[in-house]
């Protein structure tokens, strides 16, 4: 543990708050223990129980992101909000860039799309960079679409190969094992993670935008295209942020919710309790863009460190009995 690093991390977190406060965002604190979650099929959760001697016990989940309650605040008219909080993800490998408990910064700005949020993210990172922050971790960002990334780095069009059969063919062409039993999402990720992501340019922070809308998320579609209005930020080849133009159509949200709930019920080790009440509370959800940043990874990048060891003071790996 290096006190100098703790001081710098603390000061950067203050600067993050200053940044959002000065832009009229309201800081909020939402529950980390929740009786239900948005069923994200790719995330395993931590489950615990509320023990009540009077009313019986209730299952509770540690939130994998503050999204669930921040969105309810937006639906109730909170306006622009941000939060820095702990988030929890189970069943992930503990490594130089993963810890089951981590710090997340999430903000929502109403009336904008994800494109406008690129500028906010750029301004944020510019304003909190330190003298030792490597040049390759500083704005301006480079912006690239998924289609451009596949054309430039893979030598083929993603848009022309979006069906499972074509993806399988491309995997086979590149000697990457894939099977017709793999879901579309798995085939896409095998191709993207093997061929494209390791080759993404790292000389500047990179915004990769317009993900295939077949990847099921709560991001809105880019009308008339096979893409969703979503981007991720990579700094030094590591994914730091995820941003959506948020879906506001309640029917589409409901479809997402039901679809993910059924996948979760079939595949998850920890099945989550889903609640129609959450959807009911989403009536009035405004058009907005939400962005989430892994703060530990961001701090590591700003401090010129390779991983989150040192930024996270007691990584789980070190304190597990």
């Amino acid at each position: 543990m290096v006190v100098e690093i703790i001081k710098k991390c603390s000061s950067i977190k203050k600067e993050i708050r200053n940044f959002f406060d000065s832009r009229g965002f309201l800081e909020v604190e939402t529950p980390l223990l929740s009786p239900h979650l948005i069923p994200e099929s790719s995330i395993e959760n931590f489950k615990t129980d509320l023990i009540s001697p009077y009313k019986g016990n209730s299952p509770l989940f540690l939130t994998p992101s503050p999204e669930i309650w921040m969105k309810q605040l937006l639906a109730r008219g909170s306006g622009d909000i941000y939060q820095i909080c702990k988030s929890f993800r189970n069943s992930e490998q503990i490594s130089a860039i993963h810890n089951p408990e981590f710090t997340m910064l999430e903000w929502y700005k109403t009336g904008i799309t994800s494109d406008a949020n690129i500028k906010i993210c750029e301004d944020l990172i510019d304003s909190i960079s330190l003298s030792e922050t490597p040049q390759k971790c500083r704005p301006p960002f480079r912006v690239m679409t998924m289609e451009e990334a596949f054309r430039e780095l893979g030598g083929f069009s993603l848009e022309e190969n979006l069906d499972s059969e074509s993806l399988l063919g491309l995997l086979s062409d590149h000697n990457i094992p894939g099977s017709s039993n793999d879901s579309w999402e798995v085939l896409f990720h095998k191709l993207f993670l093997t061929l494209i992501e390791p080759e993404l340019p790292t000389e500047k922070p990179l915004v990769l935008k317009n993900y295939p809308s077949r990847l099921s998320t709560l991001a809105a579609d880019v009308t008339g295209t096979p893409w969703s209005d979503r981007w991720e930020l990579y700094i030094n080849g590591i994914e730091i942020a995820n941003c959506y133009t948020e879906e506001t159509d309640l029917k589409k949200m409901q479809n997402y919710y039901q679809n993910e709930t059924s996948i979760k019920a079939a595949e998850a080790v920890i099945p989550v309790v889903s609640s129609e009440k959450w959807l009911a509370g989403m009536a009035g959800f405004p058009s907005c863009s939400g962005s989430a940043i892994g703060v530990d990874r961001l701090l590591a990048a700003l401090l010129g460190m390779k991983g989150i060891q040192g930024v996270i003071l007691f990584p789980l790996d070190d304190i597990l009995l």
Partner: protein
Amino acid sequence: MGQIKAGAIAKGTFLLEKDTPFIVVEREFVNPGKGSAFARLKLKNLRTGAVLKVTHKTQDAVEEIDVEDVSSQFLYSDGESYHFMNTVTFEQYEIPMVSMEDMQYFLKEGESYKVVRWGNESLDIKLPPKIDFLVTEAEDGVKGDTVQGATKYVKVETGLTVKVPIFIKEGETIRVNVETKEYQERINN
């Protein structure tokens, strides 16, 4: 032969992909912003040395090869293959050099190593973490140079170039870390 979950694969694991033996040379876990957890692997084909990049869901089962480490003496290389002899059965093994980058710098004739065997095939050579080498070429340190940490390069008996402290002389023995190829210490004969 057994199955291993991709999430449990470590660097150095021996795998079978498309009926070909591979060793895992790099392993990284990736959790895309939206999607399952994946293990991204860089594999080396143990027959050709060619590198194959693959990505598996961490839950996917992959074929792991059951290998055996056999103590063997290094006999010689003929430019194509390394030749070893099992120190117990005296059986001779041949391993193509093509998949063994830099191995020639660590093999000393007559020394014992572990040969990794899979059935009747020799796949790999396991080196000890540290090996002692005779320094065969070294320039003298500059007289009067007492600056701490001053270094120079020397050549050892296998042709490997090692960065060493300035006091190391030709004819001395040094211990080298095999993975990093870094000087560890001087060995007094």
